[in-house]
Every structure is written in C-alpha cells, then in structure tokens.
C-alpha cells in the first residue's frame, strides 16, 4: 500500500507541480494584459498633464513633465516634439533644437516637426532663414535606414541575377542590361548611404545651450577668443581634451569651447532638458 502511494504520490506531486507552473503562468499573463491598459492610461494621463501645463503657459513645468516621461523609458515623437516646443517657449533654442532632432529620428517626415525645427534654426541664426546645403538636402531626403534598405535591396537583386546566371548560364547575355542597372542601383545609393553615415551617424554634433559661448583658439581659458556662437548653433565635434571640445562651425571656423556650454547630440542618446 505504501509503495503504491509513494509511486502514485510522486506522480501526483509532479503532476501538481506542472499544473501549478501552468497556473502561475496563466495568472502572470492575465495580470500583465490586465495591467497593460492601466499602464497605457497612466502614460496618456501624464502626457495630458504635461500638455495642460504647456497650455497654461507653465513651460518650465511642462518641460520637466516631458522629461519625466522620457526618463521613465517612454518615448514617442509627440513627447520629444512637445518638449521641444516648451523649451522653445522658454527661449532655450539649443535644447529645443536637440529635442526636435530626437523627434526627427522617430518621425523624419512629420511636416509640423520640420516646420518647428526650421523655425528654431532660423531663430538661432538671428532671423536669417536656415537652408541646408544641396547635398545635405539630398542625403536627408531618405533616412539612414531607408538608404540602407535601398542599397541592400539593390544588392540582393544584383546577387540574385548573379545566382540566376550561375544556374542558367544561357541567360547571361540577355541579362547584361539588368546587371548594369542593378550595379548602378547598388553604387549610387551605396555612396549616398556612406555619405549619410559619415554625415549623420559618425558625426558628433554639439548644440550650444548658453546665450553666447566663446570659441577659443586653444583649450585654455587664457586662449584668445576666435569667434562667438549663440544659443542654438549646431557645431561638429572634431576632438576632445579634458572639458574642452574642438568644434567646426558651418563656416568652417575651428576652435575650442567648454563642454558645459553645449549639449552633445548623439543620435541614439536621450537628452535631458534642464531649465
């Protein structure tokens, strides 16, 4: 009797354990999906609260509320966009431009975003309209991922044609034109992709966030001032030394300025505003 019990008992325990695991899994899954709408509602509520502060003209509080959302790991184009607006209203051109640029990564073709970024850049230039150079506008016509997909797609087609010729060599002559077309389709977007990578991903941008920053000839406070840049100016970072950054502006002027006067814009980083 004892043996029967011990044999069947063990199976009962195992069977019971399996049942318990399945039950536990079921409970956890149910709780997760039940909590999901609650979590989403909480996010929306926080977002609406931040918007309300903005509408009341409390731009500093609104910017902080958007920051809290971002710090909690919740990001969307609308959050970055609205934060950019709040910072712009506070007169913080540099930080607003940085926020708009982060939003641009999530929705590069939003016309409202493009309009505000253009407006902020124009303000940063003291009213003279901002206009990117022709090659920059060409590269910005597509996002980095779009250039990648275009290039890779053409590459797949090219290799597919090569494979087809290996499988059916008699088709080689008739596919010559297609080879040329697909080759060009690889080269042209490929070069554009390389340029877009160099200009966007591998270039660190520093956005000035103080009213006026002095760019000096050397990384020392005693160095002579080479030129001055205002809030919102976007500079390319070439080198770093201690707290100093060597930068290049749109007019190809080079100099050094303190890191605490700029916001370093890395495409994959979250930028925090401070008012």
């Amino acid at each position, binding site marked *: 009797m004892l043996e029967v019990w011990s044999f069947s008992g063990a199976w009962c325990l195992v069977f019971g354990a399996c049942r318990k695991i399945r039950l536990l899994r079921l409970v956890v899954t149910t709780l997760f999906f039940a909590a999901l709408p609650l979590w989403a509602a909480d*996010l*929306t509520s926080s*977002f609406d609260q931040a*918007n309300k502060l903005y509408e009341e003209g409390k731009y500093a509080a609104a910017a902080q509320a958007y920051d809290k959302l971002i710090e909690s790991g*919740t*990001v*969307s*184009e*609308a*959050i970055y*966009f*609205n934060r950019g*607006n709040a910072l*712009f209203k506070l*007169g913080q*051109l540099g930080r607003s431009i940085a926020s708009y640029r*982060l939003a641009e*990564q*999530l929705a590069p073709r939003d*016309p*409202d975003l*493009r*309009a*505000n970024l*253009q*407006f*902020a850049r*124009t*303000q940063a230039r*003291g*009213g003279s*309209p*901002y*206009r*990117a150079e022709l090659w920059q506008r060409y590269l910005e016509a597509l996002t*980095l*991922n779009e250039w*990648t*997909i275009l290039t*890779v797609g053409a*590459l*797949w087609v090219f*290799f*597919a044609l*090569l*494979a087809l010729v*290996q*499988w059916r*060599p008699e088709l080689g002559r008739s596919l010559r034109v297609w080879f040329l077309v697909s080759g060009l389709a690889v080269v042209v977007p490929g070069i554009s*992709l390389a340029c877009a*990578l160099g200009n966007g*991903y591998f270039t660190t941008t520093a956005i000035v966030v103080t*009213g*006026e920053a002095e760019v000096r000839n050397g990384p020392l406070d005693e160095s002579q001032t080479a030129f*001055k840049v*205002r*809030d919102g100016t976007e500079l390319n970072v070439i080198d770093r030394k201690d707290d100093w950054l060597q930068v290049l502006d749109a007019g190809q002027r080079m100099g050094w300025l303190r890191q605490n006067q700029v916001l370093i814009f890395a*495409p*994959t980083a*979250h930028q925090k505003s401070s008012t």
Partner: protein
Amino acid sequence: MPETRASRGPRFRSRGGAVLYLGILLSLALTFAANAASFTASLDRDTITLGESTTLTLTFEGGDPGGAPNLPPIPNLQVGGVGQSSQISVVNGQVSSTVSYAYAITAAQPGEITIPALAAKVGNETLKSNPLKLKVQKPGTPPAAPGQPANPGGAFLKLLVPKPQVYLGEILPIEIQLYVQMGKLAEMPHFKEEGFTLGKMLQPTQSQTIFNNLRYNLITFKTYVMAAKAGKLDIGPAVMSLNVPAPNARRTFFGEIADWQTISLQSEPASVQALPLPKENVPANFKGAVGSFSLNLNVSPTNVAVGDPITIKVQISGRGAVDAVTLPDQPSWEHFKLYPPTSDFQPGDELGISGTKTFAITAVPDSMDVQELPSFSFSYFDPDQKSYRTLTQPAVALTVRPSAASLPVAAGGSTDNPQAPTRDIVHIKPRIGTLAQIQSPLLMRSWFVGLQAVPVIAWLSLLIGRKQREKLANNPRLRRQRQVEQLIRSGLRELRQAASTNQHEAFFTKLFQLLREQLGERLDLPASAITECVVEEKLGPDRLPANTVNLLRELFQACNQARYAHQETKDELVALADKAETALSELKLMKTE
C-alpha cells in the same frame, strides 16, 4: 634778338600732342588745387620729465610756408634746433606733398604747458594748427636695482602712473619707459599683480630723448591696470632684463659689439589709492560699468505684425572696460518676448580701453496692444565726475498690426519653401502617439549585417556547383567514377536485400553487374568487356593484393556457377555479400590505368 626754339617753348609735331601736354598740365594743376593745404602740429610725447626734451613737429600738407615758421614765445618753453623734411607721394593719380619742421623743445619748470594754435602763411592763406598740451613732471633720480650701480649699462626704467586715485573697475593706463643708450631687449617688463588685474601690453614704441644732458633711446611700453580691491595698491616695481655691452666689449670686423651682458633693471614702485564706488544714489539698473560712455539705440522694423520679431541694436561707446559691459535688465519691456542677445565689440584703440560694443536683441511683441518699445536706460559710474550717470534712449513708437501670424501653422502646411519661415512654431501634439525607442541604424545591427551574407552565400554555392558540373563535363572518367560509386552504393544495398530474402538470381545478377562496373571503371574498359579472364590478365600482384585477386576469382566463379545451379543458402549469400563489399572496396583503391 631772334626768336629761338627754346624761347618759344616746346613745339609739337601734331595738334594731338599739344592737347595731350595741356591735359597733363591741367590735371596736375587741378590735383594740386583740389588738395587744399593743411597745417597740423604734434608732439612725439605729451608727458616728459623736467630736463628731458621732446619734439614739436609742424606738418604742412599741400603747401609750403617757405621756411620754418617762427614760434611765438610760450611761457616755460624753450625751443632748440629745428629740422626740415619733405615728401611727395602719388597715390591713384593724386599727388600730395608734405613738408615738416621739427623743433626740439624743453621746459624750464614742471607743470602743464599749453602750446596754442600756431598760425602760418601758405601762399595767400593763413593756416592755423591745433593746440597742444605738454605735461612736465618733476625730475627723479634714475632708479637703480638692488646691487646694481646707478645707470647700469647706461639704462634705467621708469613706471608712470598718471593719477594717484582710481575707482574699482576703472581702467588706468600706465606706461613703463626704458631709457637706454645701447642695448637689446631680453624680455618684456613685468611686475606683480596684487590687488589689480593687468591688461595686455602693446608692442613698445621707440624714440630719442635727452635726459640730464645725455641722449637716450626711449622705449615705451603701454598697458593698463584695473583695481580689483579697495585700498592702497602698490603697482610695481616694474622689472625687466636687458642686454647691454659688457665693459671693454670687443667689436667684430663690421664694428658690431661682440660681448654682451644681461642686467636687471627695476623701476621705482608706484602706488594708487583704489576707491570703492559710492554706495549712495546707485541707479537700480547699474551693473558695474565704470568709465565714460555714450548710448545709441536703433529699432527695426517699427511696423510689424503680432508675433513678428523686431531687432533692437544697442550701441554703447566710450572709454573704459567697454568689452565687459553687459546689458541691464529692462523691466518695462515685459510685453516683449526677448531672445538672448548677441554682441560685437570694436576696439577704438590698440589697448582696447575704448571702443564700441553693439548688442543685437531680437524681441517679439506679444499683442496688438503694444504701441511702443519703452525707453532704454543704461547706468554707469563716471570716475571723472565721481558720480553715477544714467543714459536714456526715449521710447520708440511701434505699430503692431493683427495678422494670421499669431495662429499656428496648420499641419501639413507648406514646409517645402525654406526661404519663408513660419512666424511661430506649430502647436503641441495632443496625443502621445506610438511609443517607440530610438534605435541604432539597421547597418549597425549584427543580425542585419549577417543577413546580407545570404545572397552572397547563395551565389557562391551556385557558382561552385556550376564549376563542379563543368569539371565533370570535361572529365568523362571522373564522371564515370562518380556514377560507378553511386551504383556500387545502391547496388550493395540491393545485394544485401537480395541475400536476406534469399533471391539467388537477383543476388548474382547484381553481384556480377557490380564487379563488372567497378572493374571496368578501374581498368577503363566497358563493363560489358569484363570477364573472369580480365582478372587473370590485368590484375597482377603489382596492382592488387593476392587475397583480393583470389576473392575476385571466387566471386566470379560463384556468379558462373549460379547460372547453372543455385546451391547457396541465405547465410552463404550474406557471406558472399560481405566478400563482395570487401572486394569492391579494395578495387576502389586500385590505381586506374
């Protein structure tokens, strides 16, 4: 007297040449006439010590008085010798002539001497110069550095501070004068900065002077100081090193000094009393500017729509720490949205202690009720007047009209024309939208990069397969070898199956086929030509081991016997299958013909 060619003047071969000559004369005459004569007076130094001399230069441009003008008697001024120089220059066709008369003058007593405007007759007109002021200081003994003899190497240093009192934040220009008869600069003069900040030092100027009846080269260094704390501040002594000829110095073949020695010179110190700024009647918007300033304000445009920016240019000029001037807050501008200003400084002198600083402020009126830009005021402390002063620019009338600029730009509005920016930013988004994370580009993800190897691998596989096919097509023996290998593999399976099911006929047929195919492939003979005799003829001990040859013979004999009588059992068939496999394996290793 007969008329000579010389007396009649120049003759010309053609009328054109005459016209050209007259034209040149006329243009020269007009040029001289256009340059009205001028007369200026200048001193090479406006501060000297009693016993020193300075040079008064009278310069005539565009005219010549016909000799050195006689100076009127001036109290306390003694005039020495006079020298003359003249210069003619042609620039862009304009001819100008300059005549200068230099008088060496000395003073009899310390004090301030006013040289009045001098009059000189040039042609038919009487020209007047500008008046000048000359300051004559009391004499001092030339200072000697500790341990150095007085006038070491014929050189000494003087520190000149123009006034004994300054206010905090006031710029005080100072001069360091090096008197040297012969020497070379080893370093710039320097002194300790305690209680004040020192400005930049200009490159020195050089002149000649007479002091205590000795002629010196006078090197003047100009800089400025600004008191940083109140109280008595000591400036200097100024110290510098100088290379002078060593005693009994040798000379080179060209007469230059060969032996030099370095001496240290030290001036007498000077002290100033730094006064704190008065605490009474301090304007509310005073931000620390000390000096003498003027204010100018310009606003454009003055007719704008609500939300349109206006540019306010504030220009502060004067003498003092102009570059350090900051804009005061303007509380009355509360109805304007102000953006951080930019600034630009244009120095008025080499030291930078005078100049003009221009601020550009972008302001946006926030409603149509705004009718003017309120007055702008700037306060500073004037050390000469010893009081605070406030400069005010009156209010500027503005016309702020209503427009659609205050409405947000509709979504999907024109963003294609970057030349016409929207007048305000687009309003915030009401919905949170799709949540997402900014991720690294596809090209930076390893799985994506790995995925791109797929078409390459596919192509390479097909390429290799094609090459293999071409290789086989060009090598019939290899093709046959592969076919026979395939045949042997499948044939052995069938053999075993036939053995296990005791199918004699199928077994021996297959066995015979496999032996003939393998032997035919190895010996490069058609399979149908292989018989037992081939084994005897072609398979000598040098090609196959004797055991294998015997095994083959046994298998062939078994096949022959099986044609006539089936005697083997199932086990025997299985054993034969094993032998066949062994024999075929050995055959496969045999070298081909």
